[in-house]
């Protein structure tokens, strides 16, 4: 369990102070996969560094697994950090050490016997699927392989939490999916809490169960991934969701074809995704909807539907919207 309470991080710069994190409180439950999404400069990388106190907050408290990190001595904090693994955008492997020695790095001097260390390292390298490279050096590996090594290294000390700072941002889409699947597997099999910092909503959609959206040092929206995706409140969240779906590309083409008509976007989740919404609208309001685009995706096994439609009349649209709202379906006019 990670609890951040009213965290503020300020950086003094020449002549002024930059507030990177502005009164953020956040709770991440054990075993959760929590995504924190935002554009660069939103403060998300600073926020994740507060979780292991690589960044000391200007004010606020950091409680990890029941321990108040700020109250700890330097020595006790270093010990506590061994329970919090971290991986990075640029992997940060030691170039002068073999893959095996990289994973061994956090274990050296921990009092564990050499034989036991070897067993653990080989098990971890096997888990991340890179055991055959154990005697290679990092420069001989691809980006995806390097991140696998970094994950093995982060897990070496048996942490309860894994922090991922833009861990897939330097990887190509296919490798990104593979690394995300690995993280998901680690979460499932080892029960490790994973916090994922990213600027790609696709990453959140792929594996997270919770998400927080950050803008200018604040969390502007948060919740379960399925809820946020089906009913995003803030424009920035809506933007992020668009970039994560296929709808963004589809929209431009569709709008070109129906120039002059009003297009509406319907979003629905859960059981509603399997119900005949449009027939319902026809029966109640006598409106015919023309489907331009429709898609159902599954997030954490919950269906999430998106539709772009035009109506043959705009008379009762206000009531339609209200009716849909009651059923948990959001309707909005697509702005051209």
């Amino acid at each position, binding site marked *: 369990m990670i609890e951040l309470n009213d965290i503020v991080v300020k950086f003094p710069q020449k002549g002024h102070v930059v507030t990177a994190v502005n009164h953020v409180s956040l709770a991440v439950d054990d075993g959760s996969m929590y995504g924190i999404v935002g554009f660069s400069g939103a403060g998300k990388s600073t926020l994740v560094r507060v979780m292991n106190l690589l960044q000391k907050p200007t004010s606020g408290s950091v409680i990890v697994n029941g321990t108040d990190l700020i109250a700890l001595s*330097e020595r006790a904090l270093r010990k506590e*950090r061994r329970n919090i693994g*971290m991986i990075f955008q640029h992997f940060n492997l*030691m*170039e*002068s050490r073999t893959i095996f020695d990289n994973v061994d*790095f*956090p274990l*050296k001097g921990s009092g564990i016997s050499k034989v036991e260390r070897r067993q653990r390292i080989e098990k971890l390298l096997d888990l991340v699927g890179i055991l055959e490279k154990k005697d290679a050096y990092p420069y001989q590996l691809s980006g995806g392989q390097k991140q696998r090594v970094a994950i093995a290294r982060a897990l070496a000390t048996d942490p309860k939490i894994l*922090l991922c700072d833009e861990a897939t941002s330097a990887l190509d889409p296919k490798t990104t999916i593979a690394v995300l699947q690995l993280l998901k597997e680690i979460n499932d099999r080892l029960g490790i809490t994973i916090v994922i910092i990213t600027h790609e909503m696709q990453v959140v959609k792929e594996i997270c169960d919770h998400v927080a959206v950050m803008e200018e040092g604040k969390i502007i929206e948060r919740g379960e991934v399925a809820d946020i995706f089906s009913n995003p409140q803030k424009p920035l969240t809506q933007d992020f969701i668009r970039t994560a779906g296929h709808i963004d590309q589809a929209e431009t083409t569709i709008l070109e074809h129906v120039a002059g008509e009003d297009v509406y976007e319907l979003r629905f989740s859960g059981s509603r995704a399997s119900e005949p919404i449009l027939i319902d609208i026809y029966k109640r309001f006598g409106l015919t909807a023309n489907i331009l685009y429709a898609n159902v995706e599954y997030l954490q096994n919950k269906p999430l539907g998106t539709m772009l439609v035009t109506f043959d009349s705009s008379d009762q649209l206000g009531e339609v919207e209200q009716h849909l709202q009651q059923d948990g379906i959001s309707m909005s006019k697509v702005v051209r």
Partner: protein
Amino acid sequence: MFGSFMEHYFPYASQMGSDFTQATEETVLMTVSAMIIAGVIGLIIGILLLLTGSRGLSPNAPLYWVLDQIVNIGRSIPFIILLAIIMPFTRLIVGTSIGTTAVTVPIVVGTIPFFARQVQNALLEVDPGVVEAAQAMGLGNLAIVFRVYLKEGLISLVRSVNFTIINLIGLTAMAGAVGGGGLGATALQEGYQRGRTDVTFVAMILILIFVFLTQIIGNALLRLIAHGRA
């Protein structure tokens, strides 16, 4: 055949075989001992500069400023002037101001700031991300210095040592001008001042061989620790 060639072209140098052997030994001795002493002190100062710098692990602006100024000033004093200025200090430590042991003192003093800056720059090349990863793993500053900086920066450090040794050889030659020993003294006193060009020439060749050997050994060492990276 070779003997007569030597006698013809190197009339004086060919008579000085044992002098050259002794001078070479002195040069090697001065270089190696100065490198070891200046190496240890320079390494410590270089690491302190790294740690106390604004982006270091333990920023300390006043200490950094002092060290930085010492290094800057030390590097700015021309060696030939340092030789003269430092003489009372030399006499204080080694009891004399002439001879091989005596000139080792100014050579060490002249090399410390040079090497300290090299160490600082070499270690600054270590990826800050790797240092951050080590911090995240719970390593303390001292462990990071030894297990991350010195290990990951080893290639740059070896290059710095190599470069410093070659610079040192130059200093030992200059020290010959003020009563030091070694090949520099031979070249200046036995060769130049007596108009025996062949002696100067042979001393120069021996110094060049020493420099080349240093480079060859340094490069071999680099290949050994680079594991195909460099």
